[in-house]
């Protein structure tokens, strides 16, 4: 169970939490730490080019190296290949026996556990737990030593990544949610445009995902973002399924309303009234296999938006206009959402 284990590990190591109570905010961070442990590679957090020892060295030299460089362990390399590791514990065993003139070979650990540079950090964490070693030599695909890794390196690396991550999203969210605040005009709006290709099922829903994300960043409530996402997604799939040349999704975001305009240049709808009827569809078997084409798309859209207008001329094209009105507490781009969060 790598994930829960990681939770435990981070609680032990990071001085982040003072109390034993974990707030939602912190719980969110833990989740991200888990993700990061899978995303970040060992080579990104390890100490590169560590001090190394050779087999020709005596234990006295090891002691001297440890003292001068203030380290507590070092890998032993022979012709570029890692052959062992020596740690302060080995040195202590040697000191107890007053055996400082001994060869390094006598006290070193042969064939130590290693991790690969392109392994995710979580692999290293698992190895630290199963082997109980304090440091792991990091090797590349050819088996050559490229660095050394301690648990401290991992903690530092994760915290750094977490902080970067958090700041980037915070800055983005802050900027976007205050977009309209300092701009004065009679009527300010932000327009997003997306070109949708006919028959491009692979990218179906990409534009809607981007729209939904943009709205969330601008401070839209989860409900508003969801309603907009569902409505544009159904409309986007309609463009992909039914048009000959594809079409355009245009979203105009204003503090008090979101207007979505979806238009194409053909083939148009023969009977608009019939098209609006739940269960009516002209979709092909292929489209139905994708889970669409049951004649529910337009019905779903009308459930999600406040105003919906469908116009079409057979042979010319179709235009679907939708509007979602935002209540005062739901307004986007003016920092209100952010403010109400602060008050909590």
């Amino acid at each position: 169970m790598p994930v829960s284990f990681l939770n435990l590990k981070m609680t032990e190591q990071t001085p982040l939490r003072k109390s034993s109570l974990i707030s939602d905010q912190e719980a969110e961070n833990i989740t991200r730490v888990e993700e990061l442990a899978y995303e970040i590679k060992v080579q990104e957090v390890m100490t590169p080019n560590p001090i190394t020892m050779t087999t020709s060295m005596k234990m006295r030299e090891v002691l001297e190296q440890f003292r001068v460089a203030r380290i507590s362990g070092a890998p032993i390399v022979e012709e570029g290949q890692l052959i062992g590791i020596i740690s302060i514990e080995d040195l202590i065993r040697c000191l107890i026996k007053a055996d400082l003139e001994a060869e390094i070979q006598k006290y070193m650990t042969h064939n130590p556990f290693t991790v690969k540079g392109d392994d995710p950090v979580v692999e290293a964490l698992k190895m630290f737990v199963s082997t109980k070693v304090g440091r792991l030599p990091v090797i590349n695909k050819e088996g050559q030593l490229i660095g050394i890794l301690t648990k401290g390196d991992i903690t530092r690396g994760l915290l750094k990544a977490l902080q970067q991550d958090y700041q980037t999203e915070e800055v983005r969210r802050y900027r976007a949610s205050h977009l309209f605040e300092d701009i004065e005009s009679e009527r300010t709006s932000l327009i997003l445009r997306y070109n949708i290709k006919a028959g491009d099922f692979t990218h179906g829903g990409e534009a809607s995902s981007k729209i939904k994300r943009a709205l969330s960043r601008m401070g839209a409530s989860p409900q508003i973002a969801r309603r907009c996402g569902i409505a544009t997604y159904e409309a986007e799939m309609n463009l992909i399924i039914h048009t000959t040349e594809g079409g355009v999704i245009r979203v105009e975001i204003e503090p008090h309303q979101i207007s979505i305009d979806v238009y194409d240049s053909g083939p148009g709808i023969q009977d608009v009234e019939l098209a609006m009827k739940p269960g009516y569809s002209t979709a092909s078997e292929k489209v139905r296999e994708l889970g669409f084409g049951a004649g529910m798309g337009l019905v779903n859209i009308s459930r999600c938006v406040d105003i919906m207008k469908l116009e079409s001329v057979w042979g010319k094209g179709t235009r679907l206009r939708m509007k979602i009105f935002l209540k005062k507490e739901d307004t986007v781009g003016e920092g209100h959402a952010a403010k109400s969060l602060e008050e909590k």
Partner: protein
Amino acid sequence: MKLNEIVQKLNGKVLHSKINLDAEVKGAGGADLMSDVLASIQPQAILLTGLCNPQVVRTAMMADVLAIVLVRGKTPPVETVQLAEKEHIPLISTPFGMFEACGILYQAGLSCLERPVSDQDCFAS
């Protein structure tokens, strides 16, 4: 119920690593028709489905679905797994069929997060 309990109960296989098995699941819904999912599933539910194409992941994103469970032991195409991984939507495959998988979770006390879609909407003439 936590997501990892659901994986265990369904003898499930987790299909990518961007998954938080400690996430709390409030309920579930089952559907093969994506428009039904969009119309009826409540936020933070897990979705049991027999569909494997990338559209399932997109639908899940739009409807704030917490995790997708693919029934009947289906292996989805690479594009589906990649998209789910990119968008951090947990993707789980279970050998059980739709009926059995839903039954197991329902018996284990998971509640239904499907909102009925009114008759009027479906059979309007």
